[in-house]
């Protein structure tokens, strides 16, 4: 393919450059011009992190072939804060606390800029609609709407520009004040470099070969053809691991790359370092692997049955972890109860969907220190594990935590850092790996899907006498954080209630599904979903207000928990009261009172939206494309 000569005005400067015709505008901006402010969150037009202006129109640059920018005027996030002075909107994002991890923010700022250009007087509902094509996984959007409204009001002179300034802390009291985030300017301007934005001289690009099978023996791996390709520096497999292979937060059951067998679709088997990503990708395709498929197991309940396929030899019952909690005598408690309710609940697997896909760099420094730069949530533990895996003293292993574009637990696992370290050691050159969105979704941990049976016995006056819960979770192919998730799930399962008889069992189970791991609220979300749903079922049966039922059973100061720990102050009653008051809750039993409630539709409730009445900016955008 011959290069095209691209002539365009980019951020106000004339650019004339040869470009590979297969590039998207986003690649050209990020890789060829090093304008890394706009990000690639999905590469498929779904997230908006790549949003730029093309001839003044908001466009998703991941969908646009570079040739289409011929003669165009392109403006990226870097164009907004010329010479370091942020735009009003950027300042408003800073002031309102609208950026968290920051990965969506450059695209969001571009979309918000477009929104206020389209209608400088847009109200909150219109702002929401105009930002509908941009995903943020961190903020819940509220502070983003606040920021756009603030910018609108400052621009229109309704609010003085001083509203954008730092909170006054001259009285010396700094704690408890809304000090502006110190990392926000770098995020709203696109200046912050995430791992995937970083480059090093002489850097190689890494691509990974992944398993197409959920469970299979690896009979042979032939890397000869891949290694022979021009531009390929190195190909590694588990045979290249010099030390004791295996990582995981609790059990070290996962090799850096599959060893002898694969246990889930998407598991890494080999990695290639080459002069550019395309060559690395081609080399991955040239690796030949012979598999012998093994019977898989996908259902955690089936996996617990005798005769089920065994995922890890060390756990022939496929149980990663069982956590028991026992207080009193539950059977006696049920026998004493006036009402016993039993129900089953289930929750699904959830993708973390941090907007920043996994990315990292590794190099061996002048002192022979193997250095990995990545958005790792646990650099301390990763360096322990990596030192053992690459057989080096801990002092020769260094982890640097790059800015994390969203983690939520999903970046606690050392999924790819080991491959990077090995390739850096083999090539003695810096190496970089950037996952695609699809790669991130198929190969990294999920929130544990769960199946729960919950039995609760109560007295007529609402006192809970007994609670028995059994939860089975699909932990997938590797242990990761499963043990810890099962533990936290169990400890917190019965809720903040004084219950004399408790029996809880949580099970994390190996299957050949995508592994489950750490995810914000770590098992407690699954168990308390069941408990709190059941309390409302009970409240209805007893004809009791749901707040009242919880108050009757609430732990109080000095309570003893279900793990028999005596705790001090318990703020539950305050939380109940505060919510009841703030929401203006109308007391009554949960007997489908919705149609007759008098407490609906306060000022602090948003208007509902009607599908189809929304005007969509994306329609305009498509027309422009």
């Amino acid at each position, binding site marked *: 393919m011959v290069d095209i000569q691209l002539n365009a005005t980019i951020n106000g400067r004339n650019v004339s450059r040869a470009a590979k015709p297969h590039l998207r505008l986003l690649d050209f901006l990020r890789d060829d011009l090093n304008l890394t402010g706009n990000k690639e969150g*999905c590469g*498929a037009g779904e997230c908006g992190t790549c949003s730029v202006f093309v001839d003044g129109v908001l466009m998703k640059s991941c969908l646009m072939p570079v040739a289409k920018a011929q003669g165009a005027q392109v403006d990226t996030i870097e164009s907004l804060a010329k010479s370091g002075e942020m735009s009003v909107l950027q300042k408003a994002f800073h002031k309102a*606390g609208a950026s968290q*991890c920051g990965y969506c923010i450059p695209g969001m700022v571009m979309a918000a800029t477009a929104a206020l250009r389209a209608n400088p007087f847009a109200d909150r509902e219109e702002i929401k609609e105009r930002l509908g*094509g941009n*995903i943020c*996984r*961190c903020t*819940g959007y*509220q*502070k983003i709407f606040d920021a756009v409204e603030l910018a609108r009001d400052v621009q229109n002179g309704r609010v003085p520009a001083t509203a954008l300034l730092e909170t006054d*802390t001259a009285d010396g009291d*700094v704690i408890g*004040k*809304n*000090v502006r*985030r*110190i*990392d926000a300017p770098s995020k709203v301007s696109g200046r912050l470099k995430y791992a995937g934005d970083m480059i090093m001289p002489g850097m190689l690009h890494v691509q990974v070969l992944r398993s197409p099978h*959920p469970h299979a023996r690896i009979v042979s791996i032939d890397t000869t053809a891949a290694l022979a390709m021009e531009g390929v520096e190195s190909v590694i497999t588990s045979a290249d691991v010099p030390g004791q292979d295996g990582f995981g937060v609790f059990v070290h059951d996962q090799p850096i790359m599959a060893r002898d067998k694969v246990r889930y679709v998407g598991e890494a088997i080999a990695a290639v370092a080459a002069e550019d990503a395309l060559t690395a990708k081609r080399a991955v395709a040239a690796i030949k692997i012979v598999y012998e498929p093994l019977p898989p197991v996908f259902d955690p309940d089936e996996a617990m049955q005798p005769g089920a396929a065994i995922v890890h030899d060390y756990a022939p019952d496929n149980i990663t972890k069982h*956590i*028991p*909690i*026992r207080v009193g005598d539950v059977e006696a408690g049920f026998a004493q109860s006036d009402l016993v309710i039993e129900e*089953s609940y289930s929750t*699904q*697997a959830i*993708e973390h969907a941090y907007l920043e896909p996994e990315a990292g760099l590794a190099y061996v420094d002048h002192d022979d220190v193997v250095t990995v730069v990545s958005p790792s*949530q*646990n*650099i301390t533990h990763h360096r322990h594990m990596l030192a053992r895996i690459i057989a080096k003293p801990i002092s020769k292993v*260094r982890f640097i*935590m790059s800015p*994390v574009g*969203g*983690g939520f637990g999903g970046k*606690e696992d050392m999924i790819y850092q080991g491959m990077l370290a090995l390739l850096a050691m083999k090539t003695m050159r810096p190496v970089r790996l950037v996952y695609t969105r699809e790669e991130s*979704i198929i190969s990294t941990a999920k929130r544990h899907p769960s199946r729960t049976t919950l039995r609760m016995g109560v007295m007529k006056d609402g006192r809970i006498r007994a609670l028995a819960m059994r939860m089975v979770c699909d932990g997938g192919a590797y242990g990761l954080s499963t043990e810890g998730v099962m*533990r936290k799930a169990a400890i917190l399962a019965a*809720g*903040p209630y004084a219950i004399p008889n408790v029996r809880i069992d949580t099970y994390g189970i190996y299957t050949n599904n995508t592994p489950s791991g750490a995810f914000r*609220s770590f098992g*407690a979300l699954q168990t308390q*979903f069941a408990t*709190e749903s059941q309390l409302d079922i009970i409240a209805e049966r007893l004809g009791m207000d749901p707040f009242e039922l919880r108050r009757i059973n609430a*732990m109080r100061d000095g309570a003893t928990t279900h793990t028999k*720990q005596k705790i001090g102050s318990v*703020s*539950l009653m305050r*939380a*109940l009261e*505060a*919510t*009841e008051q703030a*929401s203006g*809750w109308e007391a009554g039993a949960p007997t*489908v*009172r*919705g149609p007759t409630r008098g407490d609906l539709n306060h000022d602090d409730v948003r*208007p509902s939206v009607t599908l189809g009445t929304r005007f969509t900016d994306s329609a305009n955008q498509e027309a422009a494309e």
Partner: protein
Amino acid sequence: MARKRGRGMAASWYGIARTATVDRSAAWAEIDDGGSAKIVTGVTEIGEGILTVLAQIAAHEIGVKPEHVVIGDNDTARAPEAAHAGASRQTYMIGNVVALASREAKKRLVDVMAEMWSAPAESIRTGNGEIWAENTNHRITMGEAVACAKNRGVVPIGSATFGTNTTGIADGKGGDGAGRPWQAYVFGCQVAEVEVDTVTGEVQVLAVWAAHDVGRAVNPQGVEGQIEGGVVQAIGQALMEDYEMKNGHTTTPGFAKYILPTSLDVPRVNSIIIEDPDPIGPLGVKGIGEPCMVPTIPAVMNAIYDAIGVRVFDLPATPEKILMAIREKERRDAAVAIQAAE
């Protein structure tokens, strides 16, 4: 009316910092030339705002402005261990240890000034970039004080370590789970207001009131940001997100299939911050990152029931599931009506 509204509530609890193990963290502090503060600790921002929280804490303890705090971090070869970024532990474990390290650095500087001014150390105050001795005319900038200290051969630095008094739980074979998994617990409660379209099955969460104990809010806007983000993630799980698998292959490998909440799906989140100070740590802070997600889903499911008399036991409550459950309920109600008529 095809659209029905309802409200539901749920309460929750959570433990702060690592579970059923001893948690620990460390930090170094230095009051630098010019009177700025330098904090080094081995953990960084994952988006929650911890760098700002640490800057506020160091500023408060040392007596400088938050913008004059520099945070060097996130490098196992250059910073002391602060363990990991998770478990709702950042403000608790790292905030507290930064406070302790800052206090030690400040004490070094205060001791120098006390000697210079022949004033008791207890009478020396700092704030807003200045240091002074109460009831005297002695008042200089922190930058000048650092210069004084250095002229006397003292670099005002401090370091600290903070650990929890916690244990494992008895979860081996035959165990009862007894133990002391955390030293700080938080509690919360949420109310959700929903609207259910009984024709399309679509559920909109219009508002959430969320009250959470955070011990002490260092940056209230940051706490709200955590609550708003956590509530919306939970609504994603409650109503739309689903990582689906078929024979070991996912059928939802991109955001076209894996549906996430957008700006149009989010409720108005009304946060209520409760401060029940932690008696153990030096600051009284606890945490909020994870606890804010826990009550949302049951509050929403309870609200759906309140609106239409249908309970969803299997997440997510997609429009299809809501419609199926409505039809199921209609059949049940009809059967009851026939029985009653007979």
